[in-house]
């Protein structure tokens, strides 16, 4: 498999999706289900006015900050709970509680307590996402192969080496799952956060255009974010996956 091929596949696949969309849109009310050109037009309009870059930038910054926070804190807690049965028994109800607290509640409380500012916004998003990371990594840590832990014990690996060389490589699939669905979930919560109390960002824009029932512009913003995520997937996540799993036998 050459490095160029996957990109080609992605392009083919996206073109297929575009075609499907266009065909479906042909028969539909353009107000409700606009065809690609209408959305492109909206996209170009927003891009030209500078709005797109500004709002997308704001959202991406929030997503990135909340992602880093949620992934580090969440995986530390998740791994600790997964590896320590006693801790897990004690804190499992807390995890369930925070997992199922509605985003709205957390966001509103964060705004009310910490003010309408970025810290509250990003903190609220992280609090929403952390329990998700916890349960994913916890399952991973529960399923760790004990024979490698024994090896590390016998050969007196340091704590750092135990994590870096023994635990984390086994958790790779769980990290991959948590980070992919993590970015997506965080972005969805950021939309709510922006809707409730921020003055910029894609969520703010989407809601604005939702009030005007301007579906084309809503889709333009949504797809702009999706495009960024496709780039992240292609340029960061996929190559990292390949690197992290290079030791697995290559695909037959």
């Amino acid at each position, binding site marked *: 498999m050459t490095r160029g091929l996957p990109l080609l596949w992605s392009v083919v696949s996206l073109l297929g999706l575009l075609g499907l969309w266009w065909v479906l849109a042909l028969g539909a009310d353009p107000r409700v289900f606009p065809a690609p050109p209408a959305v492109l037009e909206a996209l170009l309009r927003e891009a030209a006015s500078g709005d797109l870059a500004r709002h997308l930038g704001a959202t991406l910054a929030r997503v990135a900050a909340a992602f880093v926070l949620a992934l580090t804190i969440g995986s530390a807690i998740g791994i600790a709970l997964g590896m320590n049965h006693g801790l897990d028994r004690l804190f499992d109800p807390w995890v369930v509680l925070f997992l199922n607290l509605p985003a709205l509640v957390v966001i509103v409380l964060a705004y009310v307590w910490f003010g309408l500012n970025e810290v509250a916004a990003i903190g609220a998003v992280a609090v929403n996402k952390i329990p998700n990371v916890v349960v994913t990594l916890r399952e991973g840590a529960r399923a760790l192969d004990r024979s490698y832990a024994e090896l590390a014990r016998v050969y007196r690996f340091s704590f750092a080496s135990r994590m870096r060389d023994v635990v984390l490589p086994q958790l790779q699939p769980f990290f991959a799952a948590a980070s992919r669905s993590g970015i997506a979930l965080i972005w969805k919560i950021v939309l709510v956060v922006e809707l409730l109390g921020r003055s910029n960002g894609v969520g703010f824009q989407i809601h604005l255009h*939702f009030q005007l029932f301007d579906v084309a512009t809503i889709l333009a913003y949504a797809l702009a974010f999706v495009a960024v995520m496709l780039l992240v997937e292609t340029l960061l996540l996929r190559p990292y996956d390949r690197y992290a799993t290079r030791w697995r036998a290559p695909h037959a």
Partner: protein
Amino acid sequence: ALEPVRVGVLKFGTVNWELDAMKNAGFDHAAGVDVEIVPFAGEDASNVALQAGTVDVIVSDWLWVSRLRADGADFTFVPYSSSVGAIMVPQGSALRTLADLRGRKLGVAGGPLDKSWLLIQGLARRDHGLDLAAENDVVYGAAPLLAEKARQGELEAVLNFWHHNARLEANGFRTLVGAEDAAAALGASGPVSALGYVFSEKWAQARPLAARGFVQASRATKALLSSSDAEWERLAPLVRADGAELLALRDRYRDGIPARPAAEDEADAARLHAVLAELGGEKLVGRSPVMAPGTYWPGLADGF
């Protein structure tokens, strides 16, 4: 037989008060319609419901109607209330006029394209050369959250919807400037309706008795609510207020009952539309620079 009419409303919204009073007094049956109240939790929900054909009537504003008509929809509008938003500040605040707002932390419910917000901005620019949006720390957000933040004192002033303002008023706030003042200053000859019952023209044509009957029942109800204090006492649990709050809500509601012939209202609305088109641009008003013809329901030729 009675004509069924499904109305999508906010469960604790002001429209639901009116509809509840209507059903309680039997005004709908008297007018030959059977009103079914379909409660929703958010404003957006009723918009979606109307578009999806799940309800026949919702409450929205003429700007929205005009914009959608320009895009090919056939919604139309019957005035319901002229109550609009206002900028509120605490009683003890040093802020007295619009000009004092420069450089303040200001909460705005309804987003940057809110009609009240645009009108007040227009006024500030005209009278004080002040660009409210640019020269203040503006926080757009959810109305209840902003009301709470105003109470907490994090915001120095808040532009909110009238029912939130009425509650604030009962809790030691006063109006700094109302959107109706701005509208008047910008050329309206009287109170312009802000919200109205919105339905599809097609529906009204197919079911003329339903549309007219509903409008009639609404008027009868308004008459009752403007005269009877007892009815408000009855509504208190639905309004979720008592004491001063209830009184403030009652009075503001009564202030907002449209009292002018619809034609005058429409003329003023068209004038404001032009002003808004200038202030908000295409982003706000959509494709049509003038209020789309038929925005006000032509079937309303009689009466007001």
